[in-house]
């Protein structure tokens, strides 16, 4: 597969989606998906960090000595995460409070280092930037999907707005972490099912 914008987009959103195909970034996907707002801010933060760390690391790729490349990757990623953290604290203090330690934990998100290792190391800066950005979007879309279902069933709200007009018993399990395990598993199951069916069709032809 080539590296045109379109294939990079398709690959990160579906074919190699970080969460449901590569099973990366599960930690935060379990932690922040009981509220859509938290998932959105987390996703946007991750998009920014993956995009710019991929851009920077790709621009430096000719100069980074191989034996210390992971140290450099971590350093660059950490720098961007701290910038995001400072920015949110200065401009969105309420959300910073709600997310607590999770913004800092973007550093440990495997997706960012995964993109740096798998893509930015071997490709030019601009396409690496978009690869990082699309990986972040792929992550955000899945998180929002999971969060939407968990928030509706668990709290009876969407983006914090009550949907009281439909009366039902709230599913406490959706609020606690096991709910996230079930939801992620169902998402992976569906994605694998569709993908396998496509492969079979291709083989039949």
């Amino acid at each position, binding site marked *: 597969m080539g590296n045109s914008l379109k294939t990079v987009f398709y690959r990160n959103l579906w074919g190699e989606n970080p969460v449901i195909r590569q099973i990366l970034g599960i930690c935060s996907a379990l932690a*922040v998906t009981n509220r859509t707002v938290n998932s959105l801010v987390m996703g946007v933060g991750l998009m920014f960090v993956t995009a710019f760390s991929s851009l920077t690391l790709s621009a430096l790729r000719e100069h980074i*000595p191989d034996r*210390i490349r992971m140290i450099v990757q971590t350093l*660059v990623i950490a720098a961007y995460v701290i910038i995001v953290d400072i920015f949110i604290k200065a401009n969105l203090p309420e959300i910073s*409070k709600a997310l607590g330690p999770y913004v800092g934990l973007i550093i440990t998100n495997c997706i960012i280092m995964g993109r740096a290792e798998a893509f930015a190391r071997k490709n030019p800066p601009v396409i690496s930037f978009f690869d990082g950005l699309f990986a972040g979007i792929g992550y955000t879309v899945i998180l929002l999907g999971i969060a939407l279902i968990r928030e509706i069933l668990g709290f009876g709200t969407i983006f914090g707005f009550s949907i009281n007009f439909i009366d039902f018993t709230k599913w406490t399990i959706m609020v606690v972490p096991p709910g996230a395990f079930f939801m992620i598993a169902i998402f992976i199951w569906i994605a694998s099912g569709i993908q396998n069916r496509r492969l079979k069709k291709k083989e039949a032809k």
Partner: protein
Amino acid sequence: MKKGYLYTIVFIAVVSIVFSGVLAAVNAAYKSRIERNVLNAEKASVLYSMGIEADDAVAVFNERVTQKDIEGIYLYSAVNDEGVMVYSIPFEGSGLWGTIRGYISVDQGLSTIKGIAFTEQNETPGLGGRIEEEWYKEQFRGIGIDKPLVYGEDSGIDAITGATSTSNAILQIMNNFIDTTLKELEEADGK
């Protein structure tokens, strides 16, 4: 690519210096703003715990609240929206993941809790982090402190579903506050 040791050392040094410089610059640019945010949030928390509604927390705080030092205990006092004289006292205690800080307001007779507000907590977002939600904080308004606080129908205080440890930590912090800080204040006040 394969590079010599010297190049490696120089490279990592340069990269470290450049990125540290960038971070220091960003930090310096936003420092005063973040500090102001924290201070304003602190003032808003004091007002909230007292039961004073304010659109412009800083202005209302400066106008109505006075700071006092009673025998080494720093507290804020003001007349709240119900016309009651209240004390707002900072508290601190351990939650599930880290230190929880905030303000607890009591009436002048030190017999009723008038409200609670949190300024710092690192509880799980969406679970323990829900102690920040209105319904949770509001239920402590007007609770008598003649006996230790407990959750349940009798006391009218609900814990947070899925966040038992954080919920219990809050009650422990509050009971501890009643047993120690308020006792000290009572003694100091009597002098």
